[in-house]
């Protein structure tokens, strides 16, 4: 209990602080519109009316936290999850692209890392381009990628997954190259004295050593995958998914809807990172790292 408090209390305090600031910011940002409306309607607003108005506008510049919470509640709990107005439905669409992209990205990243660690030519020629590849604003050219993939017959989930893979493979490559190189020279020499084959060295030494690095980068990668899936959704015709919600909300100036999609995406990201962390703990325990 006291351990829980010592962990949760600071976080709760910070969150409370943020929520408080948020309400204040909502007043500041939404007040001009409220006054503008009032002037045009020819009424005078008292201070408390003003505050009440800024926290309850239809299309506020910054919605108050409770407005977002209500919206999320209405679009998750109170809608059938098959309904197109249900956030769960949209979340699931985004999640499936995220997971597929994450699996692609992690797999590709690991393979690339193995190539880089075992082949010096690959290390020297590919690694600099892997870094440069991340300077390409993939997010900006996502629409084109979707069209081009469409031209070669890929559509639906796959193009989104490919964009999210592009964002997620990078942290995995970097982490795994580090991880596969983490066993020190002594341990590698030791495998030599056993005259172990390269495959044996990989499975018994390099790969297990890289596991902690792998999980650290997987956490970054899964969050990146989600960003990729959301961005990939913007140009797929704003059909479905959290990205589409974000866009549709933006198109119609529905700030509450934007924020609720944003917060749901955040919660989804937190869950995904949390799940990877959980798997990490289980694996660590199985591997005897837990203390």
């Amino acid at each position, binding site marked *: 209990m006291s351990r829980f408090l010592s962990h949760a209390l600071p976080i709760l305090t910070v969150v409370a602080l943020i929520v408080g600031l948020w309400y204040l910011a909502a007043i500041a940002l939404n007040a001009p*519109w409220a006054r503008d*409306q009032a002037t*045009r309607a020819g009424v005078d607003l008292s201070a408390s009316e003003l505050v009440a108005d800024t926290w309850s506008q239809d*299309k506020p*510049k910054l919605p108050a936290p409770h407005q977002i919470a209500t919206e999320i509640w209405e679009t998750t709990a109170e809608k059938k999850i098959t*309904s*197109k*107005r*249900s956030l769960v439905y*949209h979340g699931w669409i985004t999640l499936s692209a995220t997971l597929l992209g994450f699996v692609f990205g992690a797999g590709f990243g690991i393979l690339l890392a193995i190539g880089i660690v075992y082949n010096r030519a690959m290390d020297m020629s590919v690694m600099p381009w892997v870094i440069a590849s991340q300077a390409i604003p993939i997010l900006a050219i*996502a*629409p*084109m990628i979707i*069209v*081009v993939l*469409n*031209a070669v017959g890929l*559509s639906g989930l796959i193009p989104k997954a490919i964009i999210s893979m592009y964002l997620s493979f990078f942290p995995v490559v970097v982490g795994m190259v580090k991880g596969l190189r983490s066993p020190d020279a002594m341990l590698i020499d030791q495998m030599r004295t056993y005259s172990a084959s390269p495959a044996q060295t990989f499975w018994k030494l390099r790969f297990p050593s890289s596991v902690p690095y792998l999980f650290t980068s997987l956490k970054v990668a899964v969050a990146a995958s989600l960003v990729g899936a959301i961005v990939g959704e*913007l*140009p*797929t*015709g*704003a*059909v*479905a998914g959290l990205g*589409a*919600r974000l*866009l*549709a*909300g*933006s*198109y*119609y*100036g*529905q700030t509450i*809807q934007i924020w609720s999609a944003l917060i749901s995406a955040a919660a989804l990201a937190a869950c995904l990172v949390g799940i990877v962390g959980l798997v990490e703990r289980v694996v660590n325990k199985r591997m005897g790292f837990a203390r």
Partner: protein
Amino acid sequence: ADDLTLQLKWVTQSQFAGYYVALDKGFYEEEDLNVTIQPGGPDIAPTQVIAGGGADVTVEWMPAALAAREKGLPLVNIAQPFKSSGMMLTCRKDTGIASPDDFAGKTLGVWFFGNEFPFLSWMSKLGLSTEGGDEGVTVLKQGFNVDPILQGQADCVSTMTYNEYWQIIDAGLTPDDLVVFKYEDQGVATLEDGLYVLEEKLADPAEVDKLVRFVRASMKGWKYAEENPDEAAMIVLDNDATGAQTEEHQKRMMGEIAKLTAGSNGALDPADYERTVESLLSGGSDPVITKAPEGAWTHDITDAALN
């Protein structure tokens, strides 16, 4: 049934009611067609989608289609369900704008991504530079919504009669607060929402037959939608996968759309085409197209479909 994919220019909304009605009422099925409607979005260039083979037919504005043609993508207009243009520039009255003469020195919101051509033609006709300064106008790339006019970041924004204009009204400004300039009224209207295919399709009789059936069913859809606007709007709503559209907005939009499709039986009026081309060619130093296009439209499909 023959498969056919239609690429829309924008998200699912009553602007495209005819096609959804035709799909929903089984008009396509009657013509032995299996039609897939792909919604568009802010970053989707329908011309690029059709170039990549992602669709057979696309809904596009003529300026963008002709510009693509000049880039070497041979698009051909096969039908024109929209007779008039719904484009307008909406300004706040309190900025002092009363006529196009007052634009100089003002900030105008414009859609890009291939939708900027009519605006550019208009400005060059007015002799206004788009580079800013006191003599010209400052142009903003308008995002997905009408915020700039609400927030006071722009003096005018681009709107469609059937969509964005009403968003401004919904946001709390009244028609009295606003001044609108319809492109139709300014004599710079260009054709919107035509159906386009790649030229090579028209060389294949089987494809032509398919297109004929498609256009016939689509026009049937449009006429049904014009006559039953509320039902059409509900059909659109059912097909909206984002769940973001509202009934009120779509019904109102359908009403406005009906005004634009009225007067077209689906066949392109060559006079409208000539007017559009002329307007695009007159772009001063930087015209949208540099020479009058050849073979950019055909009556073959509509002639066959509508008889």
